[in-house]
């Protein structure tokens, strides 16, 4: 009897904890979403429920040409960052993960060290580099600067996965007459697919949400990416922040991420290497 009660108490305590954590994590998102559906007059009543769906905010933001432009810039920049990071990460990790050479671990440590600097620390130096390359106020300047933080983790994660692939697989490819590039593309890459999808997604999210570099390295509205564009949305007057519109824009830019994650999650087939070796 007593033990039953204890068990029920423990169970409900645990459930309560889960609910609390969920609320804590999800409430900001929930609030953003309902805010985006409120009319500007409703905004200042603190209600946690939408009584009526208003699409005014969405209409407004989608009607702005500069927002569409920055959405396009974001897609361009993020896609390029993912593509380049994966290409460079894959080739670098092939070298770092499969070959023994002097300075290998030093290189790995340096790559890791690069990602330890706070963004602000490299901001001014990077600004000079970008200006020198003539890429100021240009999405390609952002692509280069974002790879500063996407490449280290891409290389590290892929190197770790690369090292786990059996050596004999590579040797089988060599005996079959594959060049290193062929081995990488036709044998290694298909096996690293889950790792590629994961790192690619992380890189995409990082690039998509980046703010500081995007703010610093762009000048005009038509070159901006979404996070900056949202931050710079202003109201009719200096004293009014159009929260509804900001929230609608935020929801709009988060949506592709959510869809992307859901889509690729299905593709991450675990245990893809099963059957390569042993019985």
């Amino acid at each position: 009897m007593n033990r039953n009660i204890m068990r029920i108490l423990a169970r409900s305590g645990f459930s309560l904890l889960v609910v609390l954590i969920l609320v804590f994590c999800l409430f900001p998102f929930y609030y953003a979403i309902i805010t985006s559906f409120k009319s500007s007059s409703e905004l200042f009543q603190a209600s946690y429920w939408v009584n009526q769906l208003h699409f005014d905010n969405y209409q407004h933001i989608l009607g702005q040409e500069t927002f569409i432009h920055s959405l396009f810039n974001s897609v361009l920049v993020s896609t390029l960052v993912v593509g380049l990071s994966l290409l460079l990460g894959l080739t670098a990790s092939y070298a770092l993960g499969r070959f023994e050479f002097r300075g290998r671990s030093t290189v790995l440590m340096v790559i890791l060290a690069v990602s330890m600097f706070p963004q602000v620390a490299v901001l001014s130096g990077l600004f000079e580099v970008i200006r020198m390359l003539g890429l100021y106020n240009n999405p390609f300047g952002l692509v280069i600067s974002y790879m500063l933080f996407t490449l280290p983790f891409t290389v590290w994660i892929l190197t770790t996965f690369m090292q786990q692939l059996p050596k004999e697989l590579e040797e089988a490819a060599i005996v079959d007459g594959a060049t290193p590039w062929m081995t990488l593309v036709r044998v290694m890459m298909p096996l690293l697919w889950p790792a590629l999808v994961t790192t690619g997604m992380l890189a995409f999210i990082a690039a998509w949400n980046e703010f500081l570099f995007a703010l610093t390295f762009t000048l005009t509205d038509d070159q901006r990416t979404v996070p900056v564009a949202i931050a710079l949305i202003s109201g009719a007057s200096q004293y009014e922040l159009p929260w509804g519109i900001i929230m609608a824009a935020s929801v709009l830019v988060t949506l592709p991420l959510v869809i992307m994650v859901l889509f690729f999650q299905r593709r991450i087939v675990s245990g893809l290497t099963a059957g390569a070796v042993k019985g």
Partner: protein
Amino acid sequence: MASVTLKKINKHFGSAHILRNIDLDIEDGEFVVFVGPSGCGKSTLLRVIAGLEEVNNGDLLIGGQDVIDLAPKERGIGMVFQSYALYPHMTVRDNIAFGLQLSRESSQTIEERVASTARILQLEPLLERKPRELSGGQRQRVAMGRAIAREPRVMLFDEPLSNLDASLRVQMRMEIAKLHRRLKSTIIYVTHDQVEAMTLASKIVVLNAGRIEQVGTPYELYEHPATTFVAGFIGSPNMNLLSSSVDAVNGDLLSLALQSGTSIDISPVPVQGVIKGDSVTLGIRPEHMQLTTPAAGQIDGEIVNVEYLGNERFVYLMYHADAEPLVIRHSGQQLPMVGERAGVLFEADACHLFNQQGISYPRVLHDHPESALAESI
């Protein structure tokens, strides 16, 4: 189909000298098996032949052509790895076709080769499957298929059966033998398993610490081991090795003094060049001794263990406190019991004598029915 010649191959890993002056001639169509204890360099030697490992010096010829500077692909070899190393994301068909695709064969040639390979190895119903959908034996066959599809001049196997269970191993062993008879290609095969070596090989190479101990047919290795190492390595259970010294030699008559002080007479002497006073090792296989009563035996001792295997028994006999027990294969009627005393009779003809360096004394050659048979074929 090609011969393989190794000349003074040396290989170092850092400061470790792994292969020492390997000289070896392998003829076209031969089935050569490398055996030796773990770490003796079998895989390294195979990988040197494959071109996956560079040598420090030495020469390697395949089909008379110097290949030491060629890539694995250009050497015309096919290799079956211990872990099979199938491409897990490709179907059986693609696994077999991969090498052909890379060498830009026409799609018709590829089709034909895959089809004939699949027919030889009975892979036809499995062609569209992925490796993870195959059993161990089937994966093994795919690995062989991948190696033979490009019609290599030399096939290399590195312990291909060691991941399979015992009954499958026997079955695959026969398939490999069949494959060799059918393709008649030169095969170099590494194994730990003596039975595989004895049954498959036309020539066995015994390696020890990076050196070749002996090269010969299974028959030669079993009947005429050149060193105590080979004597102890080939045959199961191992040959008994008894240290002794020569008591007396007189023409055909030889008597040895064992560690225990007992003097035994093994006449007629099967070897030449033994001198009185020499320290020698007497080698005798378990099947060349007979159990008898303590009084009738050349030596006697206490039975310390009996292993029953159904068709035969291995009897362990302690003849001297400081020596390893003798192992005797016994299939007679009477049942030896642990704790009993028994005597042992040696077949003088089957005795081997090794000098202090462990090298066999030259044998007096008798006519062996089997070698005569081999010559007449």
